[in-house]
């Protein structure tokens, strides 16, 4: 017998690695970015700065207090349903939100697309990918402060969070549940839910209380008190620097952003909750594709791949006509709801289709006057902003990150992700 054989066998009998999975200390510092950091990946001097998933742990936060206390720069949430704020309901919604079993093949939770450390959105791709890898036509938006939208989704087609949850739960390309009853049965047959609905609602699992619970969790993800709020509403002069203040002045002045991304006397939602045509949707529907596609194949390495080659392995992108798809009114073609800009630094890539990777690109888009065409909003015109003004605007947008986001992310990390057992 070979020498190496006895050596290795001897070692195999005393496995030092068995039972190695040790619990790590909770993270004290939360990074508000993907744990798989690809910052400056386009450069040849890119270096990794990756986090370990074993350390992705956190501390539960007082979500009830967050949902019920005023935050600088934001009004208290008013709800039109009879789903009153309740601790047990928030906790139940929080558990459901991270439960991957709530999809047809047990692989998709709400949080797989609305990823906590990625601003409760997805920084890692332009448009979301759902059940069996199917394409969605839109970028996964943040659900921070989603409570303040009057119409939900980029086309404002849904009217409240209680109802909204059934869109992803049942969509064939999202969580792909075949029926409402299937979702209820999944929960009923998971022993870790035993008694939880009864305790929170006094009734067993139902279509109504699944929506209520998830809505309660999402409504507790309120995040104001940004440096901008401290400066503007809190009157703390040092909260913003001069560049950020210049950016604010442009935002409400020359750049005309606040015409749609509204800032009020007592609070700022950064949205008028209305639908506008910026030209981005028009461009996507009408423009002819380029003959070559720039494809990054490694850090700092880009190659041009022929369109025909890309098309041989791809399905054509789904068209997106915005609000028109809901109203069928041709005037509504390519209209999208104004996004709130709170926490915008955390939620790249931008716009309904994730077309822009950087805030500067979005500002340059507005600077060009959007994309001119018959239906372009009259509020969008060329701005003639200088390079420095673009930088100042972008600096201002980066001051809109709420001061409790780390806390909300840490709270999310504390949830046990639901997987089959």
């Amino acid at each position: 017998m070979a020498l190496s054989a006895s050596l290795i066998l001897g070692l195999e009998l005393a496995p030092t690695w068995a039972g190695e999975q040790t619990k790590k200390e909770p993270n004290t510092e939360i990074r508000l970015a993907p744990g798989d950091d690809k910052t400056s990946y386009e450069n040849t001097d890119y270096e990794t700065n990756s986090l370990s998933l074993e350390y992705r742990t956190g501390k539960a936060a007082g979500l009830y207090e967050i949902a019920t206390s005023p935050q600088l720069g934001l009004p208290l949430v008013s709800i039109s349903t009879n789903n009153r704020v309740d601790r047990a309901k928030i906790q139940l919604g929080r558990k459901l939100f991270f439960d991957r079993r709530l999809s047809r093949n047990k692989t998709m939770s709400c949080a797989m697309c609305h990823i906590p450390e990625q601003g409760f959105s997805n920084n890692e791709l332009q448009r979301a990918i759902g059940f069996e890898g199917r394409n969605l036509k839109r970028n996964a938006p943040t659900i921070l402060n989603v409570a303040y939208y009057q119409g939900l989704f980029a086309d404002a087609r849904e009217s409240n969070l209680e109802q909204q949850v059934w869109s992803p739960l049942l969509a064939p390309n999202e969580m792909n549940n075949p029926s409402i009853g299937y979702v209820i049965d999944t929960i009923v047959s998971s022993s870790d839910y035993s008694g939880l609905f009864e305790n929170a609602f006094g009734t067993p699992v139902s279509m109504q209380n699944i929506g209520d619970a998830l809505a309660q969790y999402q409504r507790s993800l309120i995040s104001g008190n940004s440096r901008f709020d401290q400066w503007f509403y809190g009157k703390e002069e040092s909260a913003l620097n001069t560049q950020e203040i210049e950016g604010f002045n442009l935002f409400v002045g020359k750049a005309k952003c606040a015409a749609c991304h509204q800032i009020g006397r007592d609070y700022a939602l950064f949205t008028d909750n209305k639908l506008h045509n910026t030209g981005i949707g028009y461009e996507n529907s009408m423009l002819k594709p380029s003959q070559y596609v720039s494809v990054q194949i490694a850090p700092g390495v880009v190659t041009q791949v022929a369109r025909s080659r890309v098309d041989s392995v791809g399905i054509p992108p789904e068209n997106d006509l915005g609000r028109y798809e809901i109203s069928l009114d041709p005037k509504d073609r390519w209209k999208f709801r104004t996004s709130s800009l709170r926490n915008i630094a955390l939620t790249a890539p931008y716009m309904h289709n994730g077309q822009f990777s950087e805030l500067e690109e979005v500002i340059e888009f507005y600077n060009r006057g959007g994309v001119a065409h018959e239906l372009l909003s009259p509020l969008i015109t060329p701005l003639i902003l200088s390079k420095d003004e673009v930088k100042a605007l972008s600096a201002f947008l980066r001051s809109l990150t709420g001061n409790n986001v780390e806390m909300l992310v840490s709270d999310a990390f504390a949830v046990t992700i639901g997987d089959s057992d």
Partner: protein
Amino acid sequence: MNLFKTTGVNRGLMQIAIASLFFAASLTSHADETCMSPYMAKIVGQEDFVYVWTLGQENLGDEQDKLVTIDVNPASPKYGKVINSLSVGGRNEAHHSGFTDDRHYLWAGGLDSNKIFIFDVHTDPAKPTLYKTIDNFVKVSGGVVGPHTFYALAGKIMVTGLSNNADHGGRTAMVEYSNTGDYIATHWHPTDQDLRGAEKSGKFADGYGYDVRALPRRNAMFTSSFTGWTNYMMDFGTMLQDPEAMKRFGNTAIKWNLHTRKPEKIFDMPGAPLEIRCAWQPNHNYCFTTTALTSKIWLMYEDEQGEWQAKAVADIGDPSKVPLPVDISITSDDKGLWVQTFMDGKARYFDVSDPFNPKQTYEKEIGSQLNMISQSWDGKRAYFTSSLLNNWDKKGDQDQQFFKSYTWDGSKLNLEFEVDFKAEKLGSAHQMRFGAYGLYGMKRPYETKQAEVNSNASDTLLASKPE
């Protein structure tokens, strides 16, 4: 001496000799598919079956994943035919599979559903049955998603992951199981936050995973790195046009300590290094891998100081066109390396007698798309399949799905037969593993002429018995 009593793998089933690396003298001259674990029982000579782990396609046949058995023994009356098809339920994103070291069971994974299907292939090698399904892989492993490679170690199976349940990105771990399906441990890939004692030899420590191979005589184990669930599940054309998604590929390979399962050295290997194939000859301390996006052959080798290094040693096709090298296979004499390029459907043979200077000497277009290869130990037979990933495969008419059997005469490939997986309503043909009666001391149920193959089937099992 029965070294494997301790592993508890026989479970009262047929008493047959179990092969192992440790009888290295016989191993270097006889074994079967050259990509198998050195811990594995070996086939010598003619294989009887190829098991094809097949993806269900929507609107085709029963639409679900299945293990397809093809009779590949030219002496068999059913030669060239699909003789069994075992549907497992669901489209799990069937991908790779691997035998336990005793070759009694075939573990096959679903990259999407995270299910692991364990097939009994020894009771009747012509008709595998589903022995057990593991459906709590994510939960027991602590969040690993995408069970990929199933690599036999002594009495154990090392399962590589591709992703995780937190962000569906590429950070992941290897998960170790006993042959009987009991969870043993999770071995996370090193990240900057926790290098786990490894040396970051370049700029990258991305924590990604893909394949695993071992060189037990050097106490070494190697892993490569691909991408997370989001990318491997999404439409390939959509992904190529998504600059964010294209940043999420692995750029590392890792040398581990096989015994302690600790990562020791992280190599920079830009552009998604995939399959790893280690040399077989006892003095050849190196392994090859290829980077899918940057189209290079890489060599990981032990230098004269006993230090492990990695070096890009050749281009594959025209890298600027992204030919996408996928599966590779090394010949048993370590002189040749088959490299398949998915986009142009070509099998390419590289002369790697000088591992630092691979030279392509032959190529042949096998189909409109091409992924896997399995070759016999003597290199005379090579089998090819078409599918890469359900949403990466070509669309429409270009989505040919096949199993093709070739002979290789040293200078060209000759087609012997093919099975059209779409016409047969089977699905997308992915990974192949060999089966044989002789492995389990069984006789073939048909007469074979001595001229063709050895009739008592003992030609399939020679390498394993300790002298």
